């Protein structure tokens, strides 16, 4: 249905935009092992994005590439969080920590969706996200409880992404209409908060005291970053309308 497709779009766009952000790190990471690790995570997310977009597109007779390359900014459904710039490695890890904890809780419930395709995609992706989560947690510990500089940077990275956390957990009418199919974002908040607090505590960090931002609520409004992301992502495809690759 339209609603399911719209929901799949949200899931797919978050994964796609974050993969796009993480892809930048490949060849620029602090050590080769991280070029590989961040590359892996980006690749996994891109895989999820392709599955979700393909499924969403099937409702409208569109391919994954139609949706990725030929939609304009207001048609994307990504959250502010995944659109945030990479910043330094600490900010990237902070974003990963928030997103992978959220995504793990989400997918681990989505496997029970009444929609079999969504459930199947989530089931396949869940193991990967478990690794992403572990990667983010390990680095949060290392950076938080590493050196003074790394602690300062990790704190500042968390502060920087924190305004965009609430949006991930906001319910709306689409979610109401999709009871049994979609996961209620608000239900993920408690387990997310619990694990996050535990990780930050072990990392000698605190949950940021930073105001949430009024975000787009997955509507047509995005952060100012998305335009730049899409300009780069879509430029070659759009120079060759109708071409295949």
């Amino acid at each position: 249905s339209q609603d399911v497709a719209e929901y799949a779009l949200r899931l797919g766009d978050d994964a796609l935009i974050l993969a796009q952000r993480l892809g930048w790190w490949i060849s620029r990471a602090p050590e080769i092992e991280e070029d590989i690790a961040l590359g892996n995570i980006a690749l996994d997310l891109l895989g999820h994005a392709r599955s979700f977009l393909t499924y969403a597109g099937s409702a409208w007779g569109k391919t994954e590439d139609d949706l990725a390359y030929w939609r304009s900014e207001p048609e994307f459904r990504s959250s502010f969080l995944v659109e945030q710039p990479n910043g330094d490695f600490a900010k990237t890890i902070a974003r990963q920590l928030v997103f992978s904890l959220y995504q793990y809780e989400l997918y681990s419930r989505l496997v029970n969706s009444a929609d079999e395709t969504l459930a199947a995609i989530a089931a396949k992706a869940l193991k990967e996200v478990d690794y992403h989560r572990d990667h983010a947690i390990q680095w949060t510990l290392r950076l938080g409880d590493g050196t003074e500089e790394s602690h300062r940077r990790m704190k500042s990275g968390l502060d920087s992404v924190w305004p965009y956390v609430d949006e991930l957990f906001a319910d709306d009418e689409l979610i109401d209409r999709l009871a049994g199919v979609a996961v209620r974002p608000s239900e993920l908040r408690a387990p997310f908060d619990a694990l996050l607090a535990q990780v930050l505590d072990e990392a000698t960090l605190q949950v940021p005291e930073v105001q949430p931002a009024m975000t787009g609520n997955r509507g047509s409004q995005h952060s100012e970053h998305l335009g730049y992301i899409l300009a780069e992502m879509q430029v070659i495809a759009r120079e060759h309308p109708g071409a295949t690759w």
Partner: protein
Amino acid sequence: QAGQAYFDRIIAEDSRIEPSDWMPEAYRKTLVRQISQHAHSEIIGMQPEANFITRAPSLKRKAILMAKVQDEAGHGLYLYSAAETLGTPREELFDQLLTGRAKYSSIFNYPALTWADMGAIGWLVDGAAIVNQVPLCRASYGPYGRAMVRICKEESFHQRQGFEILLELANGTPAQKQMAQDAINRFYAPALMMFGPNDDASPNSQQSMRWNIKRFSNDELRQRFVGMIQEQVKVLGLTLPDDKIRFNEETGQWEHGELDWNEFYEVLKGRGPCNAQRMERRREAHENGAWVREAASAYAAKQAQKAQVA
């Protein structure tokens, strides 16, 4: 000397030297230089392709490209490990790269300008690498040979993907076909030069061949490669920018047009279009990552101490 005798016998038998075996200093030095250069090439070689990860024109191609660049990082890791078995730690090899004392393959000092370059790099650059590397799977130094086996398997996968990119473009719109031909035009000569100078200008090759590190001369490998791509380019319906290519029935060898060795040496000396950029990017990544690596060691030390106390 017993060590020398064992070494000579192993080489004579075309068998394998292992890390704990005695080996001549010159052999060790040659290997460290060759293996680390190869490792550096994998790492620097990530850059031209990474340049198109965010812009790949389809999601499938984006995934394939990401995986490829990631594989190159993996190859770099195997090779640094192989070099480390010879007693030089990765840190030191990195330092040689960043200070410009170590080289990497000159081909990566050419810019990747269009999507078609992802095809040309896969097909020609990985293709040349494979022709170079397949004989290295039998290199007399065990860890190197074994790393090569693994790498070659992945490289041939990459080459096929590069060829597929070009094939898709060659059968695409006129602009795509033009882009593919242009990429081939730009990468053809540099790819041929990947095999190194002509045999008469490559005196070290002889010793490497005696040690069973190298199995064929630069020119032999180059000719083999030319023969190969000469056939493949027909499938693409495109051409190589060299009308001198022919099979010489008399010598039984492929011949190609003259290469601009002057350019080769210019690039080798650091004057290619992207030498400065590649090194700057690598140095920046290394410097920007310093605090991260320090944090990781500090954390590891703390954990070790805790474990000891507990």
